[in-house]
């Protein structure tokens, strides 16, 4: 896009931005530079700090340190509205407009053309129509916004932002619910806006789209800036390395060698298992005493696989077997009954019951499994809680403390304890080390290995590739909601996982089936 030899002047400059939530450092001295007239992709896995960066820049969260300059002048908006007035507009994945109002009313919300205190409906409709025509949209602007497709709603939100004289437009996952044709329309609009000198920040996890539309790419990981590159000269595998890897010392599987010594019994198997529109059918065998890692980018179908395996989501095809016998997994209750456990990625919303005590959280799954009429006595509960608090070194060690007051790592251990108390045969762990400080991180990994040695089958999702390589006996690589490759033993290393993730769609499909 840039033809001039001199880089365009920077429009938005972020320097040394930091933000913590409690003990979690969501952003650490992050720099970000957006030039006028460029489309700049902001990439990173879940928890990398993308949304925090956006929210701090647009004043939704106050910042701890750092400066933001817009057109050379320092700005510090205190709210999204103030940011909008300064010229920074954000359109979120879930369009934040009012679906029950008309398109025209949404476009001119808060600034309707008035005469004598009365909204001039006709004038507003006429101007709305003209505005949308600029974006190639010819629709009935008096119909409710909610009656139109998500694509139209997005364009409306963008039109409103641009009409409010935005100089910086932040699009957060705008293409997530658009079809291919709608994406084309949106990209056309983005290019047109960039030509007018607007700087666009494009957040997405669709790498194809990122390469198609972006001039430059900034990658964040764990709240830190990894790097800023020209899109045209950044190989895809290098980009994925930036997003996933750490230093990427060529770690090889510590377990691989041991794994081949004895044949392991199959704990659970899934044959042609899948759900339309959720994840493509896959074959998966989980064996006692074995860790299977699921690797892939955000949105590649890792969590979807985990939820199907546990029963949190119903498969619409295929057959699941536990210890060889066919089973139906219709609900989490079924999963629990068959001896499965699942620690979800979102600990706070899907895992802990914050106001209940550590003890109550630990016994919850066991109690649910036993049923109402067989309550665990307080003595039994105390004993179970004490045993696991000690075994997993949960701190503080008071079982009567509300679990919401514990740190992330200790909450994760409480969730592990909850499932271990049910004596499971299979544990599914979705990002067990996310948002956990370094010490607890190593501890959780040690625990995973220990559990495996005790004969448990484990299915572990992680974005940290070197971590997956360290503890996995086998690694399943996912892309675009399908299992594309399975690596075992010696073949497991960060490089081959990266290659499988980055490989071109068509060729990998061949390799995967060959």
């Amino acid at each position, binding site marked *: 896009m840039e033809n001039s030899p001199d880089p365009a002047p920077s429009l938005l400059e972020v320097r040394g931005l930091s933000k913590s939530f409690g003990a979690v450092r969501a952003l650490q001295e992050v720099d970000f530079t957006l030039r006028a007239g460029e489309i700049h992709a902001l990439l990173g896995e879940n928890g990398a700090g993308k949304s925090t960066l956006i929210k701090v820049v647009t004043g939704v969260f106050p910042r701890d340190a750092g400066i933001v300059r817009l057109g050379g002048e320092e700005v510090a908006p205190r709210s999204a509205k103030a940011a909008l007035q300064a010229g920074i507009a954000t359109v979120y994945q879930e369009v934040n407009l009012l679906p029950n109002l008309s398109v025209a009313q949404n476009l001119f919300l808060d600034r309707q053309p008035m005469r004598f205190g009365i909204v001039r409906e006709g004038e507003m409709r006429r101007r709305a129509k003209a505005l949308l025509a600029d974006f190639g949209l010819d629709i009935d602007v008096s119909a409710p916004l909610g009656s139109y497709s998500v694509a139209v709603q997005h364009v409306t939100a963008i039109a409103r932002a641009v009409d409010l004289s935005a100089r910086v437009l932040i699009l957060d996952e705008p293409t997530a619910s658009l079809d291919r044709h709608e994406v084309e329309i949106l990209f056309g609009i983005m290019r047109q806006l960039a030509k007018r000198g607007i700087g666009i920040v494009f957040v997405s996890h669709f790498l194809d789209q990122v390469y198609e539309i972006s001039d430059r790419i900034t990658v964040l990981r764990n709240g830190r800036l990894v790097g800023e590159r020209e899109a045209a000269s950044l190989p895809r595998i290098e980009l994925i390395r930036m997003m996933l890897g750490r230093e990427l010392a060529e770690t090889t599987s510590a377990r691989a060698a041991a794994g081949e010594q004895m044949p392991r019994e199959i704990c659970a198997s899934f044959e042609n298992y899948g759900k339309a529109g959720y994840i493509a059918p896959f074959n998966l065998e989980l064996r006692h005493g074995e860790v299977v890692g699921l690797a892939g980018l955000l949105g590649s179908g890792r969590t979807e696989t985990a939820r199907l395996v546990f029963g949190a989501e119903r498969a619409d095809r295929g057959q699941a077997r536990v210890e060889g016998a066919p089973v139906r997994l219709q609900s989490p209750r079924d999963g629990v009954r068959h001896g499965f456990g699942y620690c979800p990625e979102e600990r706070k919303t*899907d895992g802990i019951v914050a106001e*209940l005590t550590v003890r109550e959280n630990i016994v919850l799954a066991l109690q649910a499994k036993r049923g109402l009429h067989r309550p665990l006595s307080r003595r039994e509960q105390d004993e179970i809680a004490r045993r696991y608090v000690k075994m997993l070194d949960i701190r503080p060690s008071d079982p009567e403390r509300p679990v919401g007051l514990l740190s992330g790592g200790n909450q994760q251990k409480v969730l592990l304890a909850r499932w271990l108390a049910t004596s499971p045969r299979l544990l599914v762990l979705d990002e067990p080390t996310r948002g956990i400080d370094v010490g607890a991180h190593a501890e959780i990994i040690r625990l995973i290995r220990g559990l495996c040695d005790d004969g448990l089958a484990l299915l572990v999702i992680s974005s940290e590739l070197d971590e997956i390589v360290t503890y996995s006996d086998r690694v399943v690589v996912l892309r675009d909601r399908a299992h594309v490759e399975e690596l075992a033993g010696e073949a497991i290393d960060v490089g081959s996982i990266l290659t499988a993730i980055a490989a071109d769609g068509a060729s990998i499909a061949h390799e995967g089936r060959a």
Partner: protein
Amino acid sequence: MTALLPRRGLAQILALIVILAVDRVVSPQFFDLRLQDGRLFGSLIDVLNRGTPVALLSLGMVLVIATRGIDLSVGAVMAISGAIAASLADTHGLPVVLAAALGAGLICGLWNGFLVAVLGMQPIVATLILMVAGRGIAQLITEGRIVTFSSPDLVWLGNGAVLGLPVPIAIAIGMLILTAAVVRGSALGLLIEATGGNARASELAGVGTRAMILAVYVWCGVCAALAGVIAAADIMGADANNAGLWLELDAILAVVIGGTSLFGGRFSLILAVLGALIIQTMNTGILLSGYPPEFNLLVKAVVVLAVLLLQSPKFSGIAAMIARLRGTKA
């Protein structure tokens, strides 16, 4: 297992003592008790007796609220069960009357539970349906009249005495013990608190959250039906227009005063009942004081405000800040 009366009940007990003391000031004979025809009489007994319907409602309501729900239909369910009991009282025996009235409450509870747990409707809207329709159903049963009866069995339920205690009070105590035994004696209490605290997480931990929610609405319906029977027995008739009118609000208030959050989770049965008693003690006190009863509504509003302020984290933050400032100045 959570103790029946946790430490956090201190505020409620203090509040009750303060209100009782005020009542003693406005009415010097407030604490007088006398035994007459094998039944105790006195203002305190009146408080307990009058407080019975709301206490029973709050026993069901507290469980519903613990699951992060609410049941607006309990007043209407009282009217239905009262109408059924009054219509059958003179032609059928007490067991049949009770079974029919409580069965109606159970069906009402199942309906509410079905709407909330199975269809996933918002509790406030789902129970609003029966709140409106229920009173209509009750009026259809009584054919728009006030149905009176003279069955001595049913009259005894409202006006008799057991070991000197009025029967309604005995029933309320019995129901409190029964509910506590079922909820805290089984795993129900923990699973209800988990469901209310975080339904998604509980579901993923294998808790049958739907069954929990269904069960609490059914129990709420049964408690409301029992309250309706007692209210009808008390006045020896059923008035479909006024039986249980607005009592759902008192029941919710009782639960809130009892410290159970409308956001669900932790609950206390006994504190909810204590909340009902606090409300009734205020009512009786205002009646005895000679102030017009309208005054009652204002006082209730002030109490609600005070309780909610005490529960609000922002307010306690401000209070703590003020305390700190005072501390540093001193």
